[in-house]
């Protein structure tokens, strides 16, 4: 079953002048179609301004489509009555952890969401414990969030979403502000949630090495989907990715360069181990 489905989805940012007349129209998403199956780990790549974040906000029904349709768990995102159902089904994690944490104690922050939808107290605490355990932050439950590192804060933000029992989590560059360790922890956490809890993951990122574990990669450019496939298929096309202002993992690029110089190695090498294996076989 598809958890998210888009059909001719279009979103326009309309700028108006002081009289309220239309000044300019910026089409951020241009009639795209896609569907995401339940339980998939999908990565979305694209340069700054390619429409990725607009898409993320559309999935969370923060933005309603200008035309076309987007369904989350079967609900039409244009249906205002279903807004809360949609947001509960598809939780969202943003770039800056500091903007997403509101309480003074970790466990209260995680409990904030369920409390707001009227979950009984006992179940709130169960959900808080479960979510914090799932992101590996249970031992910090009584801590103050502002003493945590960026990566830890981001994991608390993810726990807050998990406590809403979503079927899908949309993460908009969750690691952009983190150091290498924090990045690793967050990616590890979402990979585990995907595998163990079968949560559908939509990861928007600029770090190519975070994408190699995904089931599917979608590349966006100027509001359209321009490439789609497994990480290996997408990263095999080094030149095409560069055209879209993107990159490949360093080891993929090294393999590509070696191949161009006449060394027989296959396209789409994704990890250090793969390249070392190929080279030692020569």
């Amino acid at each position, binding site marked *: 079953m598809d958890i998210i489905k888009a059909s001719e989805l279009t979103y326009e940012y309309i700028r108006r002048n002081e009289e309220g007349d239309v000044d300019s129209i910026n089409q951020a998403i241009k009639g795209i179609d896609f569907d995401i199956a339940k339980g998939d780990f999908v990565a979305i790549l694209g340069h700054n301004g390619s429409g990725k974040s607009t898409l993320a906000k559309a999935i969370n029904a923060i933005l309603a489509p200008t035309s076309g349709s987007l369904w989350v768990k079967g609900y039409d995102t244009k249906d205002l009555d279903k807004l809360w159902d949609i947001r509960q089904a598809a939780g969202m994690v943003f770039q800056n952890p500091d903007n997403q944490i509101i309480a003074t104690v970790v466990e209260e922050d995680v409990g904030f969401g369920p409390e707001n939808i009227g979950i009984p107290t006992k179940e709130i605490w169960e959900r808080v414990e479960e979510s914090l355990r799932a992101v590996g932050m249970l031992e910090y439950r009584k801590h103050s969030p502002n003493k945590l*590192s960026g990566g830890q804060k981001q994991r608390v933000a993810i726990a807050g979403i998990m406590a809403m029992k979503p079927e899908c989590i949309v993460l908009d560059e969750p690691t952009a*502000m983190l150091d290498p*360790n*924090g990045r690793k922890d967050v990616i590890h956490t979402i990979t585990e949630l995907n595998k163990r809890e079968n949560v559908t993951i939509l990861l928007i990122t600029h770090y190519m090495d975070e994408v190699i574990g995904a089931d599917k990669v979608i590349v966006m450019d100027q509001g359209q989907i321009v490439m789609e496939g497994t990480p290996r298929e997408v990263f095999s096309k080094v030149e095409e990715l560069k055209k879209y*202002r993107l990159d490949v993992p360093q080891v993929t690029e090294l393999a590509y360069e070696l191949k161009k110089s006449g060394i027989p190695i296959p396209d789409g090498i994704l990890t250090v181990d793969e*390249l070392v294996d190929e080279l030692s076989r020569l």
Partner: protein
Amino acid sequence: MSIILDKVNYKYSESTVYEKHALKDINLKINDGEFIGLIGHTGSGKSTLIQHLNGLMKATSGAIYYNGEDIYAKDFNMRTLRSKVGLVFQYPEHQLFETSVIKDVSFGPRNLGLPDLEIDLRAYEALKQVGIGEDLIDASPFELSGGQKRRVAIAGVLAMKPEVLILDEPTAGLDPKGRDEILDRIALLHKEQKITVILVSHSMEDVAKYVDRILVMNKGELIFDNTPKNVFAHYKELENIGLAAPQVTYVMNRLRDQGIRVSTSPTTIKEAKEEILRWAKGEIL
């Protein structure tokens, strides 16, 4: 010209229960025209260190000399130091505030009390240096893309004509192309204007590609100060403190473990490619 740090210590909230020893006996000499990378995980003291270099923070003990002058001496002009050592903070575009790009970049030089002509010249030159075209100079900074905003913010610091430019993670949040564009611009400035550059970064790949010297901070101490090759040779120790080497360095080390006789020193794609090709030519081609 140089910046010398002599046994610099810094303690946050000294003599309270929250005391934190953020810099421990830092000895360092930054020479004219160097391109230095500063790495270390969050909380290692990188930001504290760079804020000492232009006098934003004052050492608890120890001395800092800028071109031989003690910056903590009573008659030392801190204002001049701050215009000579330009600091670009993380997400500098959050500091844009003027109504047009050109006004924003002119703000610094105007505060120095320079004549109008000089202010204009500096602002135009700085914008050119970061690759912002004349078509954008009257635009509102808020209409620009993320990468453009970042470059305008950097131009604002360049317009002060610094001798030393310190950038705290200048590429965070940018797409790969935007990242390369900014770093290439900085490398060009370093080469053509001979500006000393200190680049704080979490990307080992970027650091390896651009800098000549790497400083590694851990728990307030400067634990490595060497060329990229020599620093990344200690990749296991770097991993223990939450850092890593560039991916290609791992490739070379793994090949070596497999009994393939390649040098483990490459830290960039170009070096790794040359080394593997050299081996391959001898062995298989």
